[in-house]
């Protein structure tokens, strides 16, 4: 056990974690040149397409050092805020963390937030200035920033380039020298923290754990403390590029187990795995996720609801930050109200449902979670516009607030102030990290930042700003429910909760957008936005008069059939309200407004 080191790589987004992991894996010959590719641990298609890490990914390195064999369990983590829950779970399985800072960018918002997460977990931090090969590398400045932030000595900071392979062996040496070996009693009953899992249609559920005490042996009986259920450890092993089966996985190590469980409900990430009959305690798992935004997810085909539920449960195994509960909509039938950590998270969930589970779904207008107090002093959590009590019964509404940290260059302070004040923000603090870099702290309503804030921030600062936020509780707010009506019929799935001062403008833009997205039909369609009985915006779509192509000869036939087949598919995805057909995209129209 003294030769095991468990560490993760943490950093702000794009600071080069996955690339550095490549070099660590390559230089220790964990991955041969045949299997090597850039960001090899980003093995989901979505990760490769988007060029970002979405899932934490564990992999074991065997590394001989000074005459001894070491086992280094590496966990690469994502940098984007929406996936911070992945980081926090990875940290729980480790004793140390490599904190990377891009030499040309310096400390950014998630550098700080991920650092604090690691400190909270009592992890040993190894600071690394990465990407030193870059022309814009500012090693002295970044060194000062790191020293200021974590209070280390300049000499303790390593220099590396994942791209050019600089500093890799120094990092390996520091991991062994500085990060403590795991503690724990190999003789004690098994106690292992489940930090991730994934559904595999052939093998059932694969569970990833870190052993805190005891060992695990192939074939033994294991018990999940949360459910009390026992299973056979049909296969156990460690994680290389793929799974590598073993007869034992020892104390302090990271591994996987397959028990043949197929039912997603029987496994919970954060649970503790022990041996049959043991009475050991549950390890303090993870903090419950606090979803930031809520939206409905509905099956495109109404009868696919049960199948969708099954898939959501399976997906949840591999994304513990996803929460959902039943929702019904007049327009969309049965579905789920889901909680996400942000809009990117929401997009990823939708994509993963499509790609990994073949579920095409309709996602509805997202909103944050409000609290409504009725005149009878009831407190109602409102995650869904439909849950908002009627105006007559309503006493007041509270909305969630966040504290936002924005790190930027001083040139952009003006732009950021304008942006944040326009989003109902309040400047709390402004402090200079260096003479040209400043950290601004605002308090703002969460609802103002979940939608397009990040894009606006990027464009206002030409990318030179990073941003992080934390919930700080609820405040009174003048929130109204805005309904959308098509030919006079309310479409519940298009309702939204919005600050009164924004309603008019938002309603107008939404009506315009819907006009674009709704296909013409054989009658006129009126689109109205209303608060209560008061219509605040309207648009009309004139009737379609003609839907026929001129020519249909030899060469036109296949082309035309394909086109019409596609249209048929599109129509299947449409939902009917009264006599109006609504395409799927319309339910997401809100996100496309500027």
């Amino acid at each position: 056990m003294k030769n095991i080191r468990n560490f993760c790589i943490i950093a702000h987004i794009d600071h080069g974690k996955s690339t550095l992991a490549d070099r660590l894996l390559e230089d220790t010959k964990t991955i041969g040149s045949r299997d090597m590719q850039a960001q090899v641990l980003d093995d989901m298609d979505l990760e490769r397409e988007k060029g970002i890490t979405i899932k934490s990914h564990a992999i074991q390195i065997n590394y001989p050092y000074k005459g001894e064999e070491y086992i280094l369990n590496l966990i690469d983590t994502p940098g984007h805020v929406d996936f911070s829950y992945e980081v926090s779970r990875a940290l729980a399985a480790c004793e140390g963390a490599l904190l990377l800072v891009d030499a040309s960018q310096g400390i950014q918002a998630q550098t700080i937030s991920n650092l604090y997460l690691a400190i909270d977990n009592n992890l040993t931090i190894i600071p690394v200035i990465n990407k030193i090969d870059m022309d814009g590398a500012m090693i002295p400045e970044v060194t000062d920033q790191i020293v200021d932030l974590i209070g280390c000595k300049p000499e303790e900071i390593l220099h590396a380039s994942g791209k050019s392979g600089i500093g890799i062996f120094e990092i390996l040496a520091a991991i062994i020298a500085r990060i403590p070996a795991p503690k724990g009693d190999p003789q004690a009953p098994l106690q292992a923290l489940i930090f991730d899992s994934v559904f595999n249609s052939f093998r059932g559920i694969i569970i990833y754990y870190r052993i805190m005490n005891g060992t695990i042996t192939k074939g033994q009986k294991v018990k999940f403390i949360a459910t009390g259920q026992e299973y056979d450890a049909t296969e156990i092993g460690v994680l290389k590029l793929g799974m590598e089966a073993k007869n034992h996985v020892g104390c302090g190590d990271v591994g996987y187990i397959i028990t043949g469980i197929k039912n997603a409900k029987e496994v919970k990430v954060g649970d503790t795995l022990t041996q049959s009959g043991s009475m050991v305690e549950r390890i303090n798992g993870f903090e419950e996720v606090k979803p930031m935004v809520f939206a409905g997810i509905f099956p495109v085909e109404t009868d696919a609801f049960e199948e969708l539920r099954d898939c959501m449960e399976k997906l949840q195994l591999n994304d513990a930050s996803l929460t959902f509960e039943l929702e019904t909509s007049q327009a969309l039938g049965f579905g789920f109200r889901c909680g996400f950590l942000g809009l990117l998270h929401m997009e990823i969930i939708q994509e993963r449902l499509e790609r990994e589970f073949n579920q095409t779904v309709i996602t509805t207008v997202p909103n944050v979670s409000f609290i409504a107090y009725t005149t009878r002093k009831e407190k109602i959590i409102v995650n869904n516009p439909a849950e908002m009590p009627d105006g007559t019964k309503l006493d007041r509404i509270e909305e969630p607030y966040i504290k936002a940290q924005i790190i930027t260059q001083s040139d952009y302070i003006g732009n950021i102030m304008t942006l944040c004040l326009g989003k109902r923000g309040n400047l709390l603090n402004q402090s200079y990290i260096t003479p040209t870099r400043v950290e601004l702290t605002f308090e703002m309503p969460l609802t103002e930042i979940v939608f397009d804030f990040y894009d606006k921030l990027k464009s206002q600062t030409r990318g030179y700003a990073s941003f992080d936020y934390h919930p700080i509780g609820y405040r009174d707010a003048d929130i109204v429910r805005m309904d959308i009506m098509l030919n006079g019929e309310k479409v519940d799935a298009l309702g939204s909760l919005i600050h009164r001062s924004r309603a008019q403008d938002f309603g107008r833009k939404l009506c315009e957008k819907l006009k674009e997205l709704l296909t013409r039909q054989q009658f006129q369609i009126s689109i109205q936005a209303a608060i209560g009985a008061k219509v605040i915006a309207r648009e009309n779509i004139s009737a379609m008069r003609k839907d026929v192509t001129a020519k249909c000869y030899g060469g036109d036939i296949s082309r035309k059939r394909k086109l019409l087949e596609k249209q048929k598919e599109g129509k299947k995805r449409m939902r009917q309200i009264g006599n109006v057909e609504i395409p799927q995209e319309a339910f997401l129209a809100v996100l496309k407004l500027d």
Partner: protein
Amino acid sequence: MAGIYIHIPFCKQACHYCNFHFSTTQHLLPRMIAAIAKETELRKTYLTETVDTIYFGGGTPSILNSSDIGLLLSKCKQVFNVNPNAEITLEANPDDITEEKLIEWKQIGINRFSLGIQSFVDTELQWMNRSHNAQQAKDCIELIKKYFDNFSIDLIFGSQLLTNGQWQENINIALSFNPPHLSCYALTVEHKTTLGKKVEKNIVTDIDTEKQAQQFEILMQQLKDANYNHYEISNYAKAGFESKHNSSYWQGKHYLGLGPSAHSFNGLSRSWNISNNALYVAAIESNQSVLETETLTPTQQINEYIMISLRTSSGIDLNVVEERWSKEVCDKIVSLSASWITTNHLVLHNKKLQLTQLGKLFADGIASDLFL
């Protein structure tokens, strides 16, 4: 019963709306003729049936001299079993037609003409970049009538320029020649055409679909009054003058397509030649295949049947559906058609589902609704 389509991929100039395959340079013409003749032989096993129709389309087949056409025709007759009474159509543009040529074409066996008239409004013809004017159009119809009793006039409606009044007038002029057949197409703005680019860049406004609908209604009414049978969405004929060749597309008959971009169908699969003159010629000269093929699944076959037959006046024949596929397929189509019947877009008549006058304006949407 089978047909042969021969694609002549050359035009004098590019009409601004046209997305057919053609080239405006003719240096490959002699090799092209030889290549098509050779392809005729290479593909002799494709059709086993008697050939009842041959159709020279394009491009502009009328820019060929009669000896080239004669060569291709005799090649077909040599390789295939061509019915001596076969319908042999030549697409022709007014500016190519002379009395001398007509006589020659008649001699080599052409017995039907499809005339690219498009409009009798000079400003519109220029705007479309057609290579003829209204007077040439009228003269050529007169001339055709002297030698042929089976011909068709092509007209385009719904362009950005054409007013409803002008369209009525165009129809009237066409009818004054008492043509046995008319093909009338709503102008479509296609990608990658001059018109398409102009519309995308907002130099030209997009099609006014309301106007197109009105002009389609005007057309249907005028031709009905003049006793034409509206036997397919874009085609109108005096009794007995329906295009046999085009009808074979709509009746699921087999056909062989020769020349670049030409499509073939043998009942189970559709194939098409490469749409590139140089590559086509080079490939054929070295005995290589230029075909791409797509085999149709049963569902695709049914969908094609629905799409095509719905456009014809006889409509979807449920007996045929039941015979070729199954009772279930037939029931499915009937149940999918219900809402269109209530809204008076479709009628079910003697086990045939037919478009009403109103339904004809929505043939595509209805067809895709009925798809399996």
